[in-house]
């Protein structure tokens, strides 16, 4: 049973847990009353309170409206730590380093695609592997893998897996500097190398969608989005390479914590000082894994392009709108209590959301704010937002990352049959292809909170603005 916390609510959107016990700071939860009911049912508030005990935490431990129970950190959690005196926690990034979302726009409309949807979905299902068979279609050798780890999406573009523009329109240009492949173990490389260009399973997917409504015409125009336009959302991460990097460093952090005299309420929160040898080694490896993830999503987009061409001919063009990561730790600068602070922002299931004018946003989006991509559950909807000023003031430039799970995987499967679920979705105009039977059942829309409710909170709190709502037509899953 989840521990009950006293929440102080000022405006029905922001709820505060005052620091107590070992906590070094408050917890602030962004949620509606209805969402809060769900949040109270699992361990997420306790986990957010545990995060507040991290040495060197700056500002509150933040919980986004899609928050749900994770490991150590809650999923939908944000924590900034002081760059000089704070800690880095691999659990604050997660096992899927740089799990993220990429939105691709097409030159086709729903009317163009609908009659050939089955053909398209089957083609994409053949061209974009989920990786459950063990490998994908991009065979990089060990030397090429070094390029991927150092240069991420840029390496892919330079080696024939994309167009020049693709790398420019990814967060951080699809490549984090100071990635050090030497800090990535041989095991992580062996595990990840054959998986480059594969989706993975769990909640990862590729969705063919169309723009159902536009809420900010200027922002939509800048992103090249039109009503009824077909777009594709890709949700994947660093695959086995990132999982192994996190596993390797968690194993090293236990003994290192003792040396640095750090004790924490949850072992999965394991952390070390950012400036320690272990901290720097982890960050260098994490950046390499993040680059692998950007390369992975770039590779998937490359094969997606081929699928569209096979079905619709050369005139069907795909362009990258944006690519965001939602599991990462990054060095950023914010004004906290009137002072400029250099911090390491841990986003565990949270998306960066820079406001208009920020210099890290591509020029094309400078006036509207950074595109923020929020996948919903299979068969419901996804959202495109634009970052707003509120996120800079309150949440270290961060917002939610999805709808947030509500039902366990076992509960989702109970009494349901994969074929029936597939048929029901088909009746709603959504074709689903999955490499595994469980892939469909575990990700049924009923397992998730309502994504629209999550978005309303973020929009009303001034963290990001609604731009467009996307509705699925075809889903490829692991």
């Amino acid at each position: 049973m989840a521990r009950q916390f006293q929440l102080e609510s000022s405006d029905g959107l922001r709820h505060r847990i005052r620091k107590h016990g070992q906590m070094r700071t408050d917890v602030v939860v962004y949620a509606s009353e209805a969402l809060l009911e769900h949040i109270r049912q699992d361990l997420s508030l306790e986990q957010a309170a545990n995060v507040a005990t991290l040495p060197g935490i700056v500002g509150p431990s933040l919980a986004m409206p899609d928050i749900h129970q994770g490991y150590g950190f809650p999923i939908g959690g944000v924590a900034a730590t002081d760059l000089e005196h704070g800690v880095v926690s691999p659990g604050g990034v997660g096992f899927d380093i740089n799990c993220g979302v990429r939105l691709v726009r097409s030159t086709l409309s729903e009317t163009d695609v609908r009659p050939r949807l089955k053909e398209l979905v089957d083609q994409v299902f053949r061209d974009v592997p989920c990786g459950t068979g063990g490998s994908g279609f991009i065979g990089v050798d060990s030397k090429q893998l070094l390029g991927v780890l150092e240069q991420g999406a840029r390496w892919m573009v330079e080696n024939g897996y994309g167009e020049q523009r693709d790398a420019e329109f990814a967060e951080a240009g699809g490549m984090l500097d100071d990635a050090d492949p030497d800090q990535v173990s041989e095991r992580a490389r062996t595990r990840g190398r054959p998986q480059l260009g594969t989706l993975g399973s769990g909640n990862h997917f590729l969705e063919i969608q169309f723009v159902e409504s536009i809420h900010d015409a200027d922002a939509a125009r800048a992103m090249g989005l039109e009503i009824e336009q077909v777009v594709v959302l890709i949700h994947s991460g660093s695959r086995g390479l990132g999982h192994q990097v996190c596993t390797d460093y968690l194993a090293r952090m236990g003994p290192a914590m003792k040396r640095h005299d750090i004790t924490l309420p949850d072992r999965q929160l394991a952390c070390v000082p950012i400036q320690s040898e272990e901290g720097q080694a982890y960050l260098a490896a994490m950046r390499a894994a993040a680059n692998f993830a950007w390369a992975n999503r770039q590779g998937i987009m490359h094969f997606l392009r081929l699928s569209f061409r096979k079905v619709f001919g050369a005139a069907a063009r795909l362009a990258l709108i944006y690519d965001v990561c939602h599991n990462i730790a990054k060095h950023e600068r914010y004004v906290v209590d009137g002072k400029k602070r250099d911090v390491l922002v841990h986003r565990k299931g949270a998306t960066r959301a820079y406001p208009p004018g920020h210099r890290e946003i591509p020029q094309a989006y400078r006036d509207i704010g950074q595109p923020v991509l929020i996948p919903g559950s299979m068969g419901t909807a996804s959202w495109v937002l634009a970052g707003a000023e509120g996120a800079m003031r309150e949440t270290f430039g961060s917002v939610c990352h999805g709808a947030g799970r509500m039902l366990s995987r076992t509960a989702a499967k109970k009494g349901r049959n994969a074929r029936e679920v597939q048929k029901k979705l088909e009746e709603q105009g959504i074709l689903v292809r999955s490499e595994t039977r469980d892939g469909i059942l575990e990700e049924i829309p009923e397992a998730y909170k309502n994504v629209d409710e999550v978005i309303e909170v973020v929009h009303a709190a001034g963290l990001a603005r609604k731009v467009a709502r996307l509705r699925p037509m075809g889903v490829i899953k692991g």
Partner: protein
Amino acid sequence: MFEILEHTADIGFRVRVRTLAEVFETAALALESIALETGAIEPRQEYRLEATGEDRESLLVNWLSEALYWIDGEQLAFHHFRVGGLAARRVTGWGAGEPRDPARHPARLIVKAVTYHQLRVAETPEGWEAEVYLDI
């Protein structure tokens, strides 16, 4: 021998066995059964597994991470696991199985990692019990 446990986003299992060595053997099999269809796996080859840890809990997490590496990284499918040596900070053993053939050993779920979330290894009046959650 083992049962599946619920978690909002992920999955876990509980092992109830007679000895601590069996905890390690059975937990590795439980992990594999979440990742793969295990029915058709044959014990044709043997692979050595080894892990260290500062205590019983980290020893189990690191042993399972070792098994996961061989399954996901080296693409092996195991019929069973055996512990050869078990000390306070070190466990050695082997897995008997064969190279994974996706047609005969289809994937169920891709397991990302083994976690410390609500991890429990305890001696009971009947033997040993452990609970482990996996990130998937």
